[in-house]
Structures are given as structure tokens and as C-alpha cells.
């Protein structure tokens, strides 16, 4: 299976990349230093080229291509432009009324949504959700602590994963919508201090007898939560469809690093011996081949999604393949340029720190390998 892209999408990607270089990259250092988006980020976003109406490439392929184009400038624009992934859970688990209430405003009014799954005591093993939701009359009462909640402090609502019966482990997990300013939801740290993606607000939240209406449990209908609702599966599903896009963003960053490094080295060609110059040229070419392999893996996964085939293994392959390769590429770029490249005068060191998250969040490289391994050997892996 090969995936070709329409000329319209390629043109749009080029325009988006150009915009990201000119409008977003100049703010990259400021975002990193201030641990926040530029104050005028909404104005900057408003200057982005608009998605053409009639792209033939499909929603997910288009999304993937835009992730790489924006990541090329600097990835802060990516998280400024995105509204979070909480609404993906609403769409997966919600009743039609709930989708209307909590998904439609995201698409129509630019609502921002939070996603609260990870806790201090677990990350990869999502069956370990310890946050509890206890039914009390017309309410659910939520107690627990969450970390790494993307947009948690700024979202219009946060989708919180909690267990209604710890004895059921993964099967007891349900998803709940907690709207902004709901009493009992406390921001303990608005933005965690991270190695990279410092402008991306990841929030630590505490739920202290946080009381929400019964109808805020996703899937709530006819006065009950259907027993077969799988909150954990929905969480993993919403992560899975986004995984290839994250690889796309990583590839955008690494491509920018290669291009920037090649430009600087070209100016210094006379400083290198002929032998070393030949080696370096070969290395830069090999890096580009690596990125092309990553692109193919991600495109295949998203093309399948556009055809209605959810293939977690394809998504896992895409997510495992590019990020670690991209880290090594940016590392090598800094090594080729020498220690000056670790200074803040260049963005390479920032991109290197930003990139490290891609092999960790939304399913680590280890978890992706597990998914692929299970497709080969079954549950033994």
C-alpha cells in the first residue's frame, strides 16, 4: 500500500509550513523561556492559511500532513492550534445529547478540552486508575489526583477517567465531564516544569469531593451507565487515532533540524576535510531517508482510519518509528555542528528537548512495541 497526496493538500502543507516558519518560529524561544504561549497567540493563529474546503485526502491524512507542516516551524503552534483531545472521548462514549453539548462547541466555538487519565501512580498501565467516582443521588463524587492533564488548567471542561468499582480494575473505569470551575476540582500545578514543550500546559489536578451531575458521566442514558461501557478502551482508542499525527509533528521538527544544519554546514564547507565532508553529506542523506520511512508508516495508519479501519498496530508502528529516530537525528545535527549548537542561539537544543516527549506521551515507545508484539505473538507478549 502506498499513499499519495493530492496536489491541493501538498500546496496547503507548503503554505502552512511557510506560515509556521515566518509567524511561529520567531516566538519559539519566548515560549520555551516563559513556559507559556505568546500573549498574542490567538492573533498569530488567526493568520494561518485556511484549510481548503474540498481536499480529497481524508480527515486523518490531512491532519497528519498539517501536523508535520506546523511542527516544521515550531511545535508550540501545534498545541496552540489544537483544542485538546477530551472531545474525542465525548464522541466515542457520549450519548447524542452529550456529543451535542460537549463536542459541538469544540468544533463550532473553539472550546478547549482537557484529558485527565495519568496519575502519579501510573502511566502506561491505564487499568490502575485510582481516582474514584461514587454515585450519590443525582451526583457523582470524584476523588483522586491526576497529572499530565493536557490543557487541564485552561480547558472549558476536563474529561476525567475514574473508577466506579476498583474491584473491576480496567472494566470499572468510566469517563466524566468536569466543567471548568466546578467546585472540588483544584489546579495543584497549572503547568508542570518539563524538559521541553514548556508552553504546552500540562496540569496537575486534585479532585477533592468534586461533585458533578449524574448526567456528566459519558454514556449516561435512561438513568444509568450501561455496564458494557468501556472507559479504558475509549481512552486508549482516542489516544490511538492521534498517534500517527504525533509522529508527523516529530518528523516536522527533525526535518527542520536537518535543513537548518545542512544550511549552516554548507556555509562552513571549506572548514571540513574532503573526507569528512563526504561522510557528513552521506549522513544528512541517511537522515532524510529515515524521515521518509517514518512518513510512510504514519500515512498508512491515517489512510486506514480514513477508510474506516481502526488499526491500532499501524498506529503503534507509526508512533514507535519516528520519534526515537527524530531524537537521534537532532542529536547528530548538534554533534555535527559542535558545542555551539547547544546554545540558545539556535533552536536545535530546544527541538531536542521538545522531541523527547514524543516517545513518552500518548503511549510510550515501550507500549507501542507491546502492541506490535501482541499482533505477532498474541497476549504472551
Amino acid at each position, binding site marked *: 500500500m502506498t499513499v499519495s497526496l493530492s496536489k491541493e493538500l501538498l500546496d496547503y502543507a507548503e503554505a502552512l509550513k511557510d506560515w509556521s516558519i515566518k509567524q511561529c518560529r520567531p516566538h519559539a524561544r519566548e515560549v520555551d523561556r516563559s513556559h507559556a504561549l505568546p500573549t498574542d497567540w490567538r492573533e498569530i493563529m488567526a493568520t494561518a492559511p485556511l484549510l481548503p474546503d474540498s481536499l480529497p485526502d481524508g480527515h486523518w491524512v490531512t491532519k497528519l500532513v498539517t501536523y508535520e507542516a506546523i511542527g516544521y516551524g515550531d511545535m508550540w503552534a501545534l498545541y496552540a492550534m489544537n483544542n485538546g483531545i477530551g472531545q474525542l472521548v465525548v464522541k466515542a462514549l457520549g450519548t447524542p445529547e452529550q456529543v451535542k453539548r460537549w463536542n459541538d462547541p469544540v468544533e463550532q466555538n473553539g472550546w478547549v478540552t482537557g484529558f485527565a487519565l*495519568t496519575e502519579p*501512580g*501510573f*502511566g*502506561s*498501565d491505564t*487499568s*490502575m486508575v485510582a481516582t474514584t467516582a461514587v454515585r450519590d443521588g443525582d451526583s457523582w463524587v470524584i476523588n483522586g489526583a491526576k*497529572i*499530565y492533564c493536557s490543557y487541564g488548567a485552561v480547558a472549558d471542561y476536563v474529561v476525567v477517567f475514574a473508577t466506579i468499582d476498583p474491584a473491576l480494575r480496567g472494566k470499572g473505569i468510566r469517563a466524566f465531564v468536569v466543567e471548568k470551575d466546578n467546585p472540588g476540582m483544584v489546579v495543584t500545578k497549572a503547568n*508542570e*516544569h*518539563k*524538559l*521541553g514543550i514548556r508552553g504546552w500546559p500540562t496540569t496537575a489536578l486534585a479532585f477533592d469531593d468534586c461533585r458533578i451531575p449524574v448526567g456528566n458521566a459519558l454514556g449516561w442514558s435512561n438513568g444509568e451507565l450501561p455496564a458494557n461501557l468501556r472507559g479504558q478502551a475509549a481512552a486508549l482508542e482516542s489516544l490511538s487515532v492521534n498517534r500517527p499525527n504525533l509522529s508527523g509533528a516529530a518528523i516536522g521538527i527533525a526535518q527542520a533540524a536537518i535543513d537548518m544544519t545542512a544550511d549552516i554546514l554548507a556555509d562552513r564547507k571549506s*572548514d*571540513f*576535510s574532503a*573526507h*569528512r565532508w563526504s*561522510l*557528513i553529506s552521506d*549522513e544528512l542523506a*541517511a*537522515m532524510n*531517508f*529515515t524521515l521518509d*520511512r517514518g512518513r510512510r508508516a504514519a500515512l498508512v495508519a491515517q489512510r486506514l482510519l480514513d477508510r474506516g479501519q481502526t488499526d491500532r498496530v499501524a498506529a503503534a508502528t507509526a508512533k*514507535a*518509528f519516528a520519534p*526515537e*529516530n527524530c*531524537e*537521534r*537525528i537532532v*542529536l*547528530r545535527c*548538534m*554533534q*555535527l*555542528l*559542535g*558545542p*555551539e549548537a*547547544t*546554545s*540558545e*542561539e539556535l533552536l536545535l*537544543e530546544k527541538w*531536542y*528537548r521538545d522531541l*523527547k*516527549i514524543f*516517545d*513518552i506521551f500518548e503511549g*510510550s*515507545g*515501550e507500549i507501542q*512495541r*507491546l502492541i506490535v508484539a501482541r499482533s505477532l505473538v498474541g497476549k504472551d507478549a
Partner: protein
Amino acid sequence: MTILDLSDEQRAVAELAREIGMEVLSDSARAAEARGAVPDTVWQTLFDSGLTMPVPEELGGSGIGDASTLLVALENLAYGDAGITLAAVSSGTAALLLARHGTGAHDDTVKRLLTNPHARSAVALYEAHGRGGAEFATTIAVTDNGLVRLSGHKVAVPFADSAEAFVVVGVDATTAIPRAVVVPRKSSGVNVRPYGPTLALGAAAWGSADFDVTLPADSLLGTVEDSDTLLNSVSLLRLAVAAIAVGTAQRSIEYAAHYATERVAFGRPIATFQGVSFPLAEAQMRIDAARLECAELAAALDTSHTGSIDLVGKVSAAVAYATQVAVEATRTAVQTLGGHGYIVEHPVELWYRSATSLSTVDNDPSLSAYQPVL
């Protein structure tokens, strides 16, 4: 450390360095990075210990006298923090070069470096452009009227903005024999560009320096005849970076291994998953290999007083290997901690940055090629 047959003295040095590393350097790492300088009290502790001032008694100092023991000291200090260790040994190795290769004209400088904890000097060694630490485009020429002309560009120069003098390594303009000169930082024709904040190792306060300077004849270190011993000293400096990388890597792997025994997922400690423990094991094997390789070269430096091209080549390979191993080991540590490895509440992200920075210093693309991960 158990796999090395350390002498009693080396064992004592290792213990002292580990103690200072853990009790002083480790806790000061973030502060040193934020300030772009080693805190005074920390510097004083290192200064008093003699661990980073490798000028032996026969040269007027009281510090470590041999390469093998110095590497043991640096690895164990770097177990606490790479940046502070690199900063401290940068000034120390400048003193060593002056004491070992200098003349009477340099005695005062050496004495000041040995006795004044506020004095800073640095060796300007590396040049980037794939030259590693073994090849120099910087030229040193003795003019007809007996003056010395120095011309070149150096990178990763420690204390770029604060050293009183730089010991600059280059080659004789006509014979291509390695030479070194001492250059006061404020000399006309010295242009320094401090990097400011960097990915890591901020305590060393790196910068680039351009030299286009005319100096008095007594600026020269050593003689044409002892250029081989100068190469030996340069090899020691380069191995110092490798030892710091090894110490950083060792600490990160032990930290991650401990975390893996306590962190539970899928019903058991994650250390029980081979996908977690095997990468740690591989990192440990590589670290051991790097340490042994560096130790063997240090021993060669200690027993041979003449350098050789063969030895320089081995040092280049050892440094390239050790620093790359450190990048991979610290990456494995970050990966083992997962999300917790990405936040500053755990130190693994700092070690990852430190190892990466160390790997950019002495890097020759003909010794370490890019390979895709998958």
C-alpha cells in the same frame, strides 16, 4: 567500580569524590546551572579536596598526579554533577598544562591557580568542524623578531567570559607540530563570545573564542622537542570529558534501575519486564566497556611520557564511544521513568542534557557515524 583493580590510593580518591559528588555537587547542580557558575562554597570544597587540580607535588601542587587516578576522581564527582565537575577540572587542567609544559615565566600564574580559589583559567582546545580534539587548524608561529603569532577559532572554551588566561592548543605554522601558548583573556586580538544559556553544563560557562594575537616569546609552553608530552596532556584533557560522561551515565542507570524496582505497572514492578531491564543492562555493559577503555588509555598515558599518533587515535575513539554511550544510557534512564523522566522533579532529564552536551565537544564524524534507530 568493582571491576577495576584500584590501588588503595585510588580507592580513597574514589570514595572521597563519590562523597563530595553526592553530598555537595548533586544538590548544587540546578543552582549551578541557573547561575551559569559553580557556587563559591562548592568550588571551595572542590578546591580544598585537590580532586580537580591535578598538579602533583613535583610540579608544586598537591593534587592528583596521574591520569588513572584523575579519571577515577572525575567519574565519581560527575556521579554527582557533570557541569560542576567539568567547570572545576577545566581550571585545573589549565594549571596542569602550565605546570607541566610552562617555563619560569608561568610560575606566578600556576601559583595563583594553585592557591587562589577565585582564579580561573581554561584550556582552549576544541575547534568543531569534525576535528574532535586531535586536529587543529589553529596556528602558532614564532616570528623573526621573536614574538609569537596565534591565529585560530576555538569552541567550548570554559569560563569564556571570566578566565584570566587561556591555554590555547594549536600547531606550529610551519612544522605542524603541536604547540600551546598562554594568552591573557584581555589581550588585544582575543574575541570571546560566551554562549549564554546552553542545553546543559552551564557551570562551565562555555563560549567561542577567536584568536588573532601577537604575544611575547615567553607565552609559549614547552619546546618543539617535547611536543609529544604536550599531546599526552591533551589526551588527558580529552579523557577527562569521557570520564565525566561515564560518571553521569552510571548515575542515571542506577537511578533508573532503582525506580524500576519500585514503580508498579501491569501488576508488578516494571523492572520485571525485560523491555525495561534489558536496555538498562545494555547501558551498563557499554558503560563498563567505556570505563575500561578510558582506564587503559589513562594507564598508557601514565607509563609513557611520549605521546604517539596511535595513542591519540585510540583516545579519539574512546571519547567518541564514551560520550555516545552516555547519551544512550541517560536516554534509557529518561525512558525508564517515562513521564516522570520528563519533569524536573527527577534529575534524569538533567543528566540526559548533560550527556548530550558532552557528546558534541570532541566529535569526529569519521569515528561515529549516524545510524537510524529503526
